[in-house]
């Protein structure tokens, strides 16, 4: 799945175009042209998700205004619906950047939200609730990471196992209440389920992630690992510590996302947060994240992708309201757009053999 030899095609093209008796200057010129072509491809790939976002924003505004949608409320809704996915997906980029794959994030969001709910119900304290949520999520995340590190397992498989385990834990947590749900006090949830709280949490966490990813060793090392794990190891990178750090950050994101989930939907059942696991994956890819990680990982992917998805979902629901089977059509349109954006984003990075 690694996109090695990323731009070899560009090089081949340049070589094929070399004139019959190449002078040094001509070679240099060809070289510059090849490099420029590669840069254009890269730039385009970087821009594709933004183009997608812009297209969707335009479509949303057009659809919304012509259908008489309450745009002010709709925009606020956009934030409400995307912020949790954005937070969790941004944290998860630390896992994906190093070439690992975590399928259990949705389940751990659920468990963390439930723990948050139980702690709140026991203590009534907002901060304890937040702390418990983060602690539960980080713990779950670190169990996967340490299992994988200690026993040399592929992370993906440990997270598949975690998915089952967390599902069972959620069922057990619900049973402690002697009912189908963990209910958090409604008025308390309403007090804090505000745009301000969401934006504070999101901005704080995203700033932390951007800082760690772009301005510290951790982000560089993860991209190196994603690009070529053997090289990373032979450059003195501790794979285990890096993986544990990445999973801890992702856990923090899940914890915060779960905290907001508990406030947004204070009635938690075993099916709560069931869509989040896949949504964060789609959001990341939609936003231009390379799923195999490596040097082209982008910390902003989740933000772009999360908003794009919320825009798309709202546009589709405006357009298809009242239509039987509309959900199926909406989902197919989503799929086509998703594939189109991914394909555009990968357009500068073709190889001779099929990507894996």
């Amino acid at each position: 799945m690694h996109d090695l030899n990323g731009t070899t095609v560009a090089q081949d093209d340049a070589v094929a175009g070399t004139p019959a008796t190449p002078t040094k200057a001509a070679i240099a010129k060809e070289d510059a042209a090849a490099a420029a072509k590669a840069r254009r491809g890269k730039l385009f790939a970087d821009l594709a998700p933004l183009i997608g976002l812009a297209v969707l924003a335009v479509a949303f505004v057009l659809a919304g205004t012509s259908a008489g949608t309450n745009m002010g409320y709709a925009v606020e809704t956009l934030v409400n619906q995307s912020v949790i996915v954005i937070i969790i997906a941004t944290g998860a980029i630390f896992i994906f950047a190093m070439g690992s794959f975590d399928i259990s994030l949705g389940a751990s969001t659920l468990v963390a939200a439930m723990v948050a709910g139980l702690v709140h119900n026991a203590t009534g304290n907002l901060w304890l609730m937040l702390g418990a949520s983060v602690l539960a999520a980080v713990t779950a995340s670190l169990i996967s990471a340490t299992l994988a590190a200690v026993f040399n397992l592929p992370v993906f498989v440990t997270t598949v196992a975690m998915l089952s385990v967390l599902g069972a834990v959620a069922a057990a947590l619900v049973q402690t209440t002697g009912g189908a749900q963990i209910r958090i006090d409604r008025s308390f949830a309403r007090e804090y389920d505000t745009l301000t709280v969401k934006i504070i949490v999101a901005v704080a966490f995203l700033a932390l992630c951007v800082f760690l990813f772009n301005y510290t060793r951790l982000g560089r090392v993860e991209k190196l690992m994603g690009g070529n794990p053997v090289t990373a190891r032979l450059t003195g990178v501790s794979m285990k510590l890096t993986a544990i750090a990445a999973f801890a950050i992702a856990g923090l994101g899940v914890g915060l996302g779960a905290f907001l989930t508990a406030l947004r939907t204070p009635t938690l059942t075993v099916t709560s947060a069931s869509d989040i696991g896949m949504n964060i994956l789609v959001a990341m890819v939609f936003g231009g994240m390379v799923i195999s990680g490596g040097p082209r990982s982008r910390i902003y992917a989740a933000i772009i992708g999360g908003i794009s998805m919320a825009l798309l979902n709202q546009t589709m629901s405006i357009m298809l309201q009242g239509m039987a089977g509309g959900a199926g059509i909406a989902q197919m349109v989503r799929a086509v757009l998703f594939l189109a954006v991914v394909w555009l984003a990968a357009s500068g990075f073709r190889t001779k053999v099929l990507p894996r």
Partner: protein
Amino acid sequence: MKITRKMAFGTAAGVAAALSLAACSSSAGTTDGSSAGATDAAAADPVKMCVLVADVTSSEALSFRDYYTDYIAGNFPVEFVYSDELADAEAEKTAMEGFIANNCEAVISFASADRPTQLDMAEDAGIYYAVATGALSEEEYETFKDYEYYVGAIGPDAMTEYQAGYDMVKHFTAEGDTEFGIFGGGVPYYLEMHIYRAAGMLAALAEDPTTSYGGATEMGDILGKIYQDGTIKIADFESDVYTLSGYLETWDFDAAWQASMADMIAAGPDAILAVGTGNAILGAAVDGTGIQIGDIDAYTEDNLVAMENGTLGFLAGKFTSINGPIFAATLSAVQGEPYRTAEGSAFALSQGYWEATTAEEFQEIVDADNVDAPVYDVDALSPFVASGASYDEFADFVSKYTFADLVG
């Protein structure tokens, strides 16, 4: 195929164009739809009613939907906007947000993952909210009954659910059956209505003096035990008369589940008592075994076939147009005449099931009430839509819901 970047740009531009075109045409479509509705109903401005549905795939949900979108929308000045399948509270909230943004004037909710949140959102947004085929818990009712935009609830309350389970067992024991299996459906997920139905079944059996469930014989005790265990334990069932030979509930339809189902059927009970969707899940398996299913579901074609061939021995079901009165109350509220109780609160009215034990009864019900000719038709509902009817008149209308009341 060689894909160039030019094509890529083309695709992107095309997608944008298509989306915006679709956007325009969709608004046009909305207008068309409403004018069509208006022609029939001879009213100018259709009321946009949005419907929250947790499970859009069941045949029950589909027939309810047909009743609203085909019959009601064709005869009243309304248009219906349905939600997608709602898996959880988050999905409900997202759908509510979409409804509010898109100027719904009322929400009729079939989704119960987080009713308090829905109620709060509707109240904040100033749109009417009604609960269909369900009820708020007492505690919830006390909290929300004075909300200005809460219309009320019509549907089986917990006791009605309990009664349906009770009636089912009474039917089979009257036929002389003594050995049963129970399909507990959503009991492990603490689905309240399933627990009450199961409790009703056990309580009916426990009327025999030698019979008890873990020592419990009364409704309250039985409910308590089920809530405590989160399941039903057949080992705790004691009786000299009756046998509980199998128990199954819903989870992944995997090897273990299928083996458990086979065990339950292999034990050869006289009947399997299902808290819901029993025929859909077990019908194929019991076909030809002589075991009957008692079910609480809806009057669908599948269930009719099952009753004809003897698989389905008892059905307590919601009839197709059961949601007529809640619609009438909601539309009335939107048009400025909400029904309020004497205390000025939102109403909480109960409606129960229609029961059928033979194909003939079943057929009678289907003939009497279907999407084309519902029992709650225009004539029945119109007197309660902004026509000055009092709360008591409306409550009386709702309470007469049985087959005998409505059909004769």
